[in-house]
């Protein structure tokens, strides 16, 4: 017994070391740095312990507040659309029809393309002169062509469209997996009882799908909170800071401006937000699992 426990510990060691080196250590280091003033380009200032100063600066930094708002809007809109479209796609792919496995593979393509590549593609699609979006909307009437990435409202919408396109397949995949765990007998029994499609969906599919939906919600929210590459490639945060999301702001502070302390404070803020969200969702997830298995 003792031996097998030791064996277990040894087997765990590599992955523990991996997590410690690549996850825990950087997180602790970020926490530590966030309480210091450290500016790379001004080395004579040294690394001074400043307590909560970076955090109080962050709380009163209008750019950071605006970036938080932008990020929250981005998460709210993209995650709800991804779940909605993901559910629709999953329901379709769950039906038996000719070429289903091919379609299941095809649907995943947007998710499989590296984000930097698809961001570049969307940047071209939204181009004000030769963009596909303009061609589809206005045809050859070039005088009406819009410049979404140059507009302080449409730029964020453009980025949200790219995000929804890119990650809906992921949501669909998780939801599809959830759908396949629902036993066919339940639907057969409901059919015998004369239930309509809507009744079956509302009373069987949705409740039993709740764990999968929550899981998709959790993954997508945390991932959307960390949105960076789309902004980096498509707009660089502009115009007028309209697409300046938190992670991009933190990146600029840390790597372009060399404000290591302040940048770390932003990183810790993002980390805390995703931690709180994860815990809240996991709680909901646990209770719903019990619901799901109740006879």
């Amino acid at each position, binding site marked *: 017994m003792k*031996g*097998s426990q030791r064996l277990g510990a040894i087997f765990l060691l590599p992955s523990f070391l991996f997590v410690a080196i690549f996850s825990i250590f950087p997180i602790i280091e970020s926490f530590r740095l966030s309480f210091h003033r450290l*500016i790379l380009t001004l080395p*004579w200032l040294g690394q001074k312990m400043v307590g909560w100063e970076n955090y109080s600066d962050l709380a009163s930094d209008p750019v950071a507040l605006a970036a938080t708002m932008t990020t929250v809007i981005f998460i709210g809109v993209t995650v709800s659309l991804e779940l909605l479209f993901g559910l629709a796609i999953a329901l379709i792919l769950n039906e038996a029809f000719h070429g289903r496995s091919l379609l299941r593979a095809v649907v995943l393509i947007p998710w499989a393309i590296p984000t930097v590549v698809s961001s570049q593609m969307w940047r071209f699609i939204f181009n*004000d002169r030769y963009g596909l979006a303009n061609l589809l909307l206005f045809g050859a009437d070039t005088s009406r062509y819009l*410049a979404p990435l*140059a507009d302080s409202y449409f730029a964020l919408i453009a980025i949200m469209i790219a995000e929804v396109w890119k990650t809906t397949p992921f949501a669909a995949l998780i939801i599809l997996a959830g759908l396949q765990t629902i036993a066919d007998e339940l639907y057969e029994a409901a059919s015998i009882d004369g239930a309509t499609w809507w009744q079956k969906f509302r009373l069987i599919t949705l409740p039993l799908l709740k764990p999968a939906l929550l899981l998709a919600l959790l993954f997508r929210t945390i991932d959307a909170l960390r949105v960076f590459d789309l902004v980096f490639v498509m707009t660089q945060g502009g115009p*007028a*800071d309209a697409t300046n999301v938190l992670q991009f702001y933190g990146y600029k502070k840390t790597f372009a401006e*060399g404000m290591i302390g302040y940048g770390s404070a932003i990183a810790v803020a993002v980390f805390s937000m995703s931690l709180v969200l994860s815990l809240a969702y996991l709680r909901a997830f646990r209770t719903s699992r019990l619901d799901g298995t109740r006879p």
Partner: protein
Amino acid sequence: MADYTVQCFILFAMKTLLICIGFALGVEGAAAQAQTNELRFVTWRAEAPQVWDQGIADFERQNPGVKVIREIGPQSSTQLHDLLAQKLKNRDTRLDVFVMDVIWPAEFASAGWALPLDRYFTADEQKKFLSAPLAANQYGGQIFGVPLFIDAGLLYYRKDLLAKHQLAPPRTWIDLVESAKIILARERDPQLVGFSAQFKQYEGLVCNMMEFILGNGGALWDPVRMVSTLDQPAALTAMGFVRDRIVGEISHRGVLAYEEPESLALFTQGLAIFHRNWPYAWAIANDPGKSQIAGKVEMSPLPGFSPGKGVAALGGWQFGISRFSTKPDLAWRFAAHMTGTAMQKRIALATGRAPTRMALYDDPEIKRQIQQLPALLDTFKQAVPRPATPVYAPLSNIMQRYFSSVLALPNTDINKRAGLAARDMNRALDLLRDRRSP
């Protein structure tokens, strides 16, 4: 049984560990051995790669046994900056020489990343260079880079359209707007725009806007009092002019998402009357393979708000040497070779990039091949650098945010925004006040 498994596993783990360590040591050893004759050079993808290849090959031939390892970084100045900052921050000894944008020397010098070159780059040698790019490489009384080529903002325009409508080249920004409006009204081409420039929220926006602000007698900052001057009247009127008249009347919204390539593409497609860009645009605009307006283009200094008061932003690239380089002498020889007369001439002839060595402006071959270059010498001499300070990056981000907000939000209160931007800039500049003697 269990114990036997454990032993097996431990043996296996130790073996793996040993292999890993051995491998790491082996790689380190090999690297250390190869390093003695290797010079690591970080740069962007050059416009005329064959010229650079040849220049490096020449250097390797002149220095037998030396191998220059080129690492091609991102094309964007901002992204290359971040890559270099990463390496330098980590005191990476596998970086010897790098190209530097004109706005970096102060920062790299202050951070202790760039090697002071005074003992190599003598005063006599410095005299052979244009003074504006040289000044941009100085910080705290020392010199940190060797200028390779110089950039300055220029006005490009369609001489055929101006001639067709009997208009003279504009001498002021007001002239430019009026001329553009006349041509737009008469041409009735829904695709044609009056002015294309770089108004996206990025570094280029600072160059473009400073040309308007300084051309109106304003300034970005006061380097003596170390305060922002964006909230001063001359700067405010210039901002209002660009928003209401340039973007509002003769340009289109799309320009707010343009960097150099997009704005130049619009011009070379014949869809813009006036265009602001760097000297490199000349060769492209006149290349029939890339441009629909080859031969119909003219170039001039930028207008001001009164005749002859135009201001060009200084740009350009330099060679710098890492302070953590283990072979600074060799690195210097390479930097000197790449910025020497022969290389600058070859680069100029191949790309039209303007040299930083003054003698080349009298070179017969350059004069014959790049006829417009000597005429630009005055513009290059008078080009104004962006603030040379170690806090330039935060200042630039604050200015980009402010400029983009004014241009992209037509109803924004310029005075209020300028006040906020000036306050933020002053906070960044205040960091320098804490400086005790280093």
